[in-house]
């Protein structure tokens, strides 16, 4: 009688299995290393910038105005300018963006118009920032005769960052279950009543996340403000919270970084680094708060 191979041996690792498992391990490590290759630059950049910026960093740097042709002093004028630009652009794009998202998520049906709007939102997000700058220059500075001003720059930024708000608001709205809306319809609420009483209260934190992301995006943009309202230098007094008017030109943090790192010779070495740290730090902080808000929300979700 021929002996049957015992079952345990039939399932032993053959060479082929071992090879396949090796391939699997190699793949896992290679892809893992590729992911790590993204984490490392982020950490390295932050550490290096902080290290180089250290001599200049401090409250004094933030609160002081640039002195001696921007070779010394701080960044107050640029910081406040960015606050103005971000605040005004937010005031313009947040209502339009949220309402547009409400339309897309609550009102629009599958139609050519809806597809066209979606395409437009995608394109608005994909248009290069320099093209937005050209548009701002042609439409607001010269077309609408707002001149080179905070108003023109904010309008340009607002249109540029609109897709950020639309996309995240839409996501927040579509996370509200269908059943909520159906229940409202069943008790006779109109569509707007449903939105106001049920959909918005249940998605307001998600919408807030989107608005926070808009702030971070708008604060970092350089090209669109460079040609519509931001200037290299503007004299303001130290610590002044309201130095600009709507029709004024202003300094902006992002543009200030460009200026001190490329246009001004013999700058104290740590100043551009410190400017970069303040800009990067504020943007990452704003983003991190959006992330924390989102995680907190996910933990609290009841449905």
């Amino acid at each position, binding site marked *: 009688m021929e002996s049957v191979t015992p079952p345990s041996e039939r399932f032993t690792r053959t060479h082929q299995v071992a090879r396949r498992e090796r391939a699997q391990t190699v*793949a896992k490590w290679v892809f893992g290393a590729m*992911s790590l290759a993204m984490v490392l630059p982020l950490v390295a950049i932050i550490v290096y910038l902080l290290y180089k910026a250290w001599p200049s960093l401090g409250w004094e740097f933030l609160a002081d105005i640039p002195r001696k042709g921007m070779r010394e002093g701080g960044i107050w004028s640029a910081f406040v300018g960015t606050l103005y630009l971000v605040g005004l652009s937010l005031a313009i794009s947040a209502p339009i963006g949220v309402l547009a998202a409400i339309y897309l998520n609550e009102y629009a049906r599958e139609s050519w118009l809806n597809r066209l709007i979606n395409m437009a939102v995608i394109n608005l997000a994909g248009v290069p920032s*320099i093209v937005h700058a050209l548009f701002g220059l042609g439409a607001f500075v010269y*077309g609408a005769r707002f001149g080179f001003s905070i108003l023109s720059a904010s309008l340009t930024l607002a249109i540029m960052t609109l897709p950020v708000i639309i996309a995240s608001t839409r996501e927040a709205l579509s996370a509200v279950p269908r059943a909520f809306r159906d229940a409202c319809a069943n008790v006779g609420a109109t569509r707007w009543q449903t939105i106001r009483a049920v959909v918005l209260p249940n998605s307001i934190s998600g919408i807030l996340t989107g608005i926070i992301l808009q702030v971070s995006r708008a604060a970092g943009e350089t090209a669109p403000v460079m040609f519509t309202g931001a200037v290299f230098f503007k004299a303001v007094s130290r610590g002044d919270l309201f130095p600009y008017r709507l029709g004024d030109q202003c300094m902006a943090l992002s543009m200030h970084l460009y200026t001190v790192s490329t246009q001004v010779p013999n700058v104290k070495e740590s100043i551009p680094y410190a400017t970069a740290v303040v800009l990067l730090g504020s943007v990452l902080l704003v983003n991190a708060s959006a992330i924390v808000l989102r995680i907190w929300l996910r933990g609290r979700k009841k449905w």
Partner: protein
Amino acid sequence: MGAPRPQRPKASIAIERIIEFVIRLSGVSAVFFVAAIFFFIFREAVPVLWDPDFDFAEFLFSKEWYPTSVNNVRYGTFALTIGTLSVTGVAIVLAVPFGLGAAIFISEFCSPKIKETLKIVIELLAAIPSVVWGFIGLTVMSKLIVSVTGTAVGVNLLNGGFILALMSVPVIVSIGEDALKAVPDSYREAALALGATRWETVFRVLLPAAKNGLLAAVLLGVGRAVGETMAVLMATGHAVQIPHGLLDSVRTLTANVAAELGEAPAGSSHYRVLFLTGVLLFAITLVVNVAADLAVRGIRRK
């Protein structure tokens, strides 16, 4: 008969009408803005087409860019187009393998905790402003390149490509991961049930199934790289020439507009040619974005 049907006050109905009108208006605003962008850029650009000094073929195919020359004005953007293509090319060659590899790792290989962390890192990486990237290229990266290769100037094609790769990787990862996530779990289960290892599942099942979405991810990465302005302005070295190697300086279409728009007097042909470059860029990104959208829609229809 019974009591009359309860009616809402006329005013509240009217207010609701108005609100809904505003909502609809905001809804179509995006279309309006895109149209306005095209209109205003085109309006500023178009008079130059009838300018006797200007020749459209020269604009596209000449590599001579002397916009401020006194007696020999030339508006040829060929070298700039090649600059954009080469920087984008270097960026994509670097970013696509890393981006797709990371997307596969995040979606298929790692534990939920690592996945969360990596996604946050990617989000933060995507949030770094382009002027900060440019600054990094100008300082850190250029020093690195000089000390590794021994070249004289650190701001060049390689530098710009590296920076752009780092900028477009987050786009590729997040869209690529979405594409892999969209593949039904039953595909994975079927492959595993046949005895495939995880890697075989990825290579033979998931990649073919998600190829449209991954293509869209790459296209959007390309779109980001083509349109990037400040980073390439600061990191590529700013010489209008056709590069012959990775260490040559170049200038891109976007950087050129950013560098010269401030100096070109409004209404001059130079100014209008820069707007025409904007039309060109607008058209390029439009095509790339629509192509990416069609690729995504391709999977959804299946």
